[in-house]
């Protein structure tokens, strides 16, 4: 079990956007491992998967970084075949929704090959998929399928929530991790600046404490980790309530002991996920805690996720479809101070507008 670490206080730090961190890790992987290649729709074009592959085709050549036809299943199968003979493929889907076209290869093949052949065949590879949100992404550009993929044994699913998580995890995975890994990146994170550290401590490929606290535990994923961190700061400043934020980070292989220990300490729990609550990560957190000790919680947990409907396009609907900063703060305060906590809530109802005003570094 990896040791979870809080974000280290950096001696030497720098500011790096999520997209730049991705580009840096893609560049590093291509530089350090001659068997790594990157393929996906648009990886070699001028937009370069929102800046995460820009310039790499020019730098490493079309043999290493190349566009593919619109063939999600075929591309994933090609990646498996290449992995089986020793290459390390990195594939991209500019929206997670498109990875559903590759479900057969991901679930029936990649997830099964190690086990089904008794360890004779392995297909280590990295599948990068991007979750969309805001500006009318609508029903088919907004889905966040971590629960779907993490359900299937054989797949490793991560959701890096910061530039640091990308910088630390990707080099630990690429050409090193034995099986297929799906990294669910969030589009809202791409343009945000983060402070990253050059310290020896690393974000592990499992859960870690993103912010230590004592009164309530918030278990969050991806962009909801940022929302939780912002909310924790808000309540700390106004009420002194101290929230502990755990970035679940690896959806398939979380550190449940870390989560349970935190909840044992606080007795109160908020779960904040980027997807639907039904049959999802929130339910799994509760299953893990209940089967360990049904007496861990002092009150029923609060849960934040997408409304139980496909994502609407209209902004007025989208703003109430996703949990807002307002609701995140409210959930934390209700856990600690009860329904009538009396604390003024932030007026921010649209996360993207919040990020326009406050761009970090986080």
């Amino acid at each position, binding site marked *: 079990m990896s040791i979870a670490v809080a974000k280290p206080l950096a001696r030497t730090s720098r500011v790096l956007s999520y997209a730049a961190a991705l580009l840096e890790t893609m560049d590093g992987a291509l530089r350090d491992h001659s068997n790594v290649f990157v393929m996906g729709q648009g990886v070699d074009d001028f937009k370069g998967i929102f800046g995460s592959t820009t310039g790499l085709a020019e730098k490493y050549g079309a043999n290493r970084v190349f566009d593919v036809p619109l063939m999600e299943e*075929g591309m994933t199968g090609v990646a*498996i075949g290449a992995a089986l*003979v020793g290459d390390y493929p990195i594939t991209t889907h500019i929206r997670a929704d498109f990875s559903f076209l590759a479900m057969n290869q991901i679930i029936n093949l990649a997830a099964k090959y190690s086990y089904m052949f*008794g360890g*004779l065949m392995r297909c280590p590879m990295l599948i990068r998929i991007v979750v969309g949100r805001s500006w009318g992404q609508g029903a088919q550009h907004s889905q966040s399928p971590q629960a779907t993929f993490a359900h299937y044994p054989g797949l490793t699913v991560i959701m890096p929530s910061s530039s640091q998580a990308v910088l630390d995890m990707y080099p630990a995975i690429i050409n090193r991790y*034995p*099986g297929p890994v799906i990294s669910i990146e969030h589009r809202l994170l791409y343009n945000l600046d983060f402070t990253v550290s050059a310290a020896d401590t690393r974000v592990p490929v499992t859960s870690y404490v993103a912010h230590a606290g004592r009164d309530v535990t918030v278990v969050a994923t991806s962009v909801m980790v940022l929302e939780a961190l912002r909310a924790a700061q808000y309540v700390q400043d106004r009420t002194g309530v101290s929230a502990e934020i755990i970035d679940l980070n690896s959806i398939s292989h979380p550190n449940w002991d870390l989560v349970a220990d935190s909840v044992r300490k606080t007795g109160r729990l908020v779960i904040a996920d980027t997807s639907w609550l039904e049959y999802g990560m929130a339910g799994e957190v509760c299953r893990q805690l209940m089967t360990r000790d049904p007496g861990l919680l002092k009150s029923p947990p609060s849960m934040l996720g997408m409304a139980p409907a496909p994502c609407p396009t209209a902004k007025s609907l989208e703003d109430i479809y996703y949990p807002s900063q307002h609701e995140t703060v409210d959930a934390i305060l209700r856990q600690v101070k009860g329904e009538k906590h009396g604390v003024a809530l932030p007026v921010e109802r649209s996360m993207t507008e919040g990020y326009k005003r406050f761009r970090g570094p986080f």
Partner: protein
Amino acid sequence: MKDEAIYRRLFRTALLIRLVEERIIALYPSDKIQSPVHLSIGQEAVAVGVCDALRADDLVFATYRSHGFYIAKGGQLDAMFAELYGRKYGISGGKAGSMHLAAPEVGLMGSSAVVASTIPHAVGAALSFKRRGSSRIAVAAFGDGATEEGVYHESLNFAALMKVPVLFLCEDNGLAVHSHRRARQSYGLIDHAAAYGIPGRRLEEGWDLLAVRQATLEATARVRAGQTFVLEIATSRYKEHVGVGEDFHFNYRTSVSVEAWKRQDPLIVDAKLAAELRPEVEREIDDAVAYAEASPAPGRAELLTDVI
């Protein structure tokens, strides 16, 4: 003389495949093999002729009907029977069974029960060979039904665009489970491939070991030179889709075409050579079955190994 020696080698491998599958039929009522089996009896010449024409380091990606390809590519017979028995010393420790045979040490790179799903794997391996400047090639082996799947078309398009050294090998037995090809396909495979700029050839004499081998040699020479190629070989499935019986009494097909095929089948026609080789081949199978019988069953210690 040279051809005779080659014919004898091919014939022996084809006979081994047939007798292995006949042994499976004999063993099946004992329930020692608790796994669906898709027999290739009638189709042996395709696997044998193709694999004989390949280099040892060339790769084959196959299907759930792959006892023939496993044996023809050189997979170990004892480990195969232990795998069919679901035993610890099977190829994959009993986790694969008949539908997922693999022998990566001799280039059989995994068989899938989901139709058409290994076709892009062959393209991916071939892409790697091309990227490395290797002279190895990959073969995607599949049935005629697989060509109806979307991923077949994705694979043809990508292979042609990237000019990868892959041979698309269609074993055309005319049936997808119980559906006839005429009810399923609006295209002819070779014309269809030509639309992607991929040359191809159909061989009608899929029973003819030497003809299959020769056609494959010609095809692979082009593939090795960087030309993606489609080779379609007519063949005949004597048995039911899955299981060890015959299925003519269900009346979805008649035995007429199968009977005609059997009149060409060298394993039947060349009874003299079959009789000569049979005792040593049966002994080889006896040894493999004994190995399987003696192998322990996997248990809790193996249940959760190799998940990732």
